[in-house]
């Protein structure tokens, strides 16, 4: 087969106002995905106004100058579509999937959101309550729900990754309508966004409609705050204990690694897969199947635009000593350092990666998100089609070197995540 089946066709261009447009035509199904990725996430927030980016994600479904409050959802649903959005440390992503004859409605909705969304006290008040319940349901009231938040606030001392995407409820309460309006005027502007249309389109028709709805949206005039990747390296390991309403003790290791898709990132990703992807992976095989001291293990990089982290964890049995769990995790890394990988290990990692990349192309939406992410972080959409090459260019020895360079104690936060009951025993 000469054609690389992992390569997808797309074209891209900028409008005069700076909006980046990506088109991926695929006429196999009468569906179209319309998405906008704004290059704003929690890392753009100021330390006394955390949670803004995520709060906006909620607010921007409230309505616009031409869409009455609450109608955004109804319009999409009445047109047979679906919609949602999500926010990360680095970007906010909005999307609809429609039957393709509703393309224009999708463009109209996203242009309303970009041009003149409603930011008023009624919407702010409602979404304040909703976001507070989201925080309680997803983080505070859920066993292990605060792992990422507690680890990141220790791993970062100056960089904005130190606060959680959902932010502080006090900040959300304290913010005024004007704070919110300013945030909107600063970040929700065409030169800070990538519009991606994927699916059953006629390219010329789509381009004409995009120009009609987005061409006259004015460029933003306020400077965009782009924080520096300024987190200094750790001097030595940071250890702590967190007590939670849980029954099974866990050990969390957070190692500093390069930014998503930069430098050694791909080697680190394969190293992480070697440790925890599939039942035969090192941590699964040894901690769960052989030593039987864990019920669940994991190791995965957070895909961050600035230098990021691998989150590694093992959840024990009720009576597992966390120190035993931690030693077993460390031994697996030592073993990689000592013996490296076999050819079979390496071929397995490449096969698993290829499978994952193929699966990511199974929906229009995940293609759109992939293309938009590479454009947003790197200004280079074509990296989406080079992902398999990036992984193939990693050598076996690079993976061992990555373990040496990044998975060492002085480069990590180590948390023992323990049942509240342990705390009481200690006090007594």
């Amino acid at each position: 087969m000469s054609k690389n089946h992992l390569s997808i066709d797309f074209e891209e261009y900028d409008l005069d106002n700076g909006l980046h447009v990506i088109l991926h035509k695929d006429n196999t199904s009468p569906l179209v995905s319309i998405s906008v990725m704004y290059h704003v996430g929690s890392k753009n927030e100021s330390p006394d106004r955390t949670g803004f980016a995520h709060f906006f994600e909620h607010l921007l479904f409230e309505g616009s100058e031409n869409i009455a409050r609450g109608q955004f959802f109804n319009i999409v649903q009445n047109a047979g579509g679906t919609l949602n959005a999500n926010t990360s440390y680095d970007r906010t992503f909005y999307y609809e999937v429609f039957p393709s004859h509703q393309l224009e409605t999708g463009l109209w909705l996203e242009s309303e959101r970009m041009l003149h969304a409603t930011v008023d006290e009624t919407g702010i008040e409602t979404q304040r309550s909703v976001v507070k319940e989201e925080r309680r349901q997803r983080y505070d009231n859920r066993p292990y729900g605060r792992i990422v938040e507690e680890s990141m606030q220790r791993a970062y001392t100056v960089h904005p990754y130190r606060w959680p995407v959902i932010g502080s409820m006090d900040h959300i309460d304290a913010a005024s309508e004007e704070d919110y309006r300013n945030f909107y005027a600063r970040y929700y502007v065409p030169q800070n966004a990538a519009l991606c249309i994927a699916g059953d389109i006629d390219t010329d028709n789509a381009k004409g409609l995009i120009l009609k709805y987005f061409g006259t949206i004015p460029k933003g005039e306020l400077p965009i705050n782009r924080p520096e990747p300024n987190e200094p390296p750790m001097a030595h390991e940071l250890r702590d204990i967190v007590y939670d309403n849980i029954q099974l003790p866990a050990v969390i290791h957070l190692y500093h690694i390069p930014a998503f898709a930069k430098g050694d990132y791909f080697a680190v990703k394969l190293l992480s897969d070697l440790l925890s992807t599939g039942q035969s992976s090192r941590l699964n095989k040894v901690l769960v199947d052989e030593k039987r001291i864990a019920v669940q293990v994991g190791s995965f990089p957070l895909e961050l635009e600035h230098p990021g982290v691998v989150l590694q964890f093992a959840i024990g049995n009720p009576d597992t000593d966390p120190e035993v769990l931690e030693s077993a995790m460390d031994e697996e890394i030592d073993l990689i350092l000592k013996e490296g990988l076999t050819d079979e290990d390496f071929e397995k990692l490449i096969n698993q990666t290829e499978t994952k990349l193929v699966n990511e192309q199974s929906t229009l939406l995940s293609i759109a998100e992939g293309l938009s992410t590479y454009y947003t972080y790197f200004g280079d959409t074509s990296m989406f089609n080079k992902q398999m090459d990036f992984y193939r260019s990693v050598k076996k020895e690079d993976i061992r070197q990555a373990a040496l360079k990044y998975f060492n104690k002085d480069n990590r936060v180590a948390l023992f995540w323990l049942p509240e009951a342990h705390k009481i025993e200690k006090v007594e």
Partner: protein
Amino acid sequence: MKRTITDEEFRKKQPDPQIAGPINFRPDQFFQLDNGLKIILVENHKLPRVNVQLYIDRGVFADGDKAGLQELAGQLLSCGTVRDSKYEWDRKIDYYGGSIHTTSIGGTASSLTRYFKQVFQLFADAILTPAFPLEEFNNLKRQLLSNLAAQKSEPESILGNLIKRRIYPGRHPYSEVITEKTVRNITVDDCREWFLTNSSPDNSYLIFEGDITMEDIKILVGDNFSSWIPRSVTTLEWPEDMKRNGVNVSFVERPGAVQSLIGIGYSINYLPYNADTDAANLMNSVLGGYFSSRLNLNLRENKGYTYGIYSRLTNDESIGSFTTSVSVRNDVTADTILEIVKEMNTLRDVDISVEELQQVKNVISGNFSRSVENPMIIAKFAFARHKFNLPEDYFKNQLIRINKVSVDDIRLMAQKYLLTDNMHIAVIGSREVLNSLTAFGQVTEFDFEGNPIG
């Protein structure tokens, strides 16, 4: 400059859609092996991968004082085969980048096309020649016991146990709760015996989707599944008696909870693909089946009590159910219950508007049209046609049937399926909310496994 441009007229209203094209139903193919195994395929050569699902259709079985037996038996299938130890089997699947998941009713397997033959053979080994090794059984049991211990802190698991115990008739399999005690009663022989006795090709389906042809499948299935010998499986009947004891309130304390998890539900006769299916599904959608449903608009968008609430009307060959669950801050627990019951009663008592009905029809039709673009959904439609003897054009006529549902139908469905006089209300939360629950009926306290306390 303020960011108000232009009074461009075209922005003021929603654009008109273009003419909708037809929904594109991919063809499905059917084949039956000599031993009775039924095979369904929907081809899709867009990506170089194949998915398959095995469904062993044998009715529901009770585990009695060995609750958890079927779950363990299903997991044990992937813990070593006559050909391979667990580690060898895992190592091979991972090497091919494939994935296999087994359960008591079959399982799924998928991989890149170029490794599918090998992955499919490993899947067949798991189903037909599982080794049920004692060592692996003990390890699975240990993991299950640890997970049961963890559930003491998981509000969703506690609610799940409570609802099972409270809404299904005693001794019905659906009322069974897996506990430390029942798990300790299970032996590896129980698992082997149960699986082998109750599995047969003539009540099983292999459902394929992806980059493969029926010609290739016939060879693959012939090589791997012909040796499966049919046996007669005794299908058991279970009591249909529902508990109909008025409104009951159950409470499980979760010290320090910052939210109450509320569940409301009951069991009900509601068979798959019955005459009510389309209208009843629309009715539940109005109540709590989509983002702009009455429950979500009321409790999330108007009151801000919750991050979200959905309701489910679940069909089942044995016993169906209605359930809804929601997490809210402690001080609005009782008010939330009141609002849910009010929304259910309103739907029973007051006709919905033609506009709202049309909106929910559009939502359901849109979901349907988007879903048929997934070849696995087409394959599952073909499976449902065979299993439930549906007309050939049943799914092709789905949109027409949805469109015919009337305002009266919705009210009748609400009266038939929303039983506000006979429901169980369960709350998992902080003790401070307990007093406010007595307004709804007699409150009984339970432990995390759903056993009454005191």
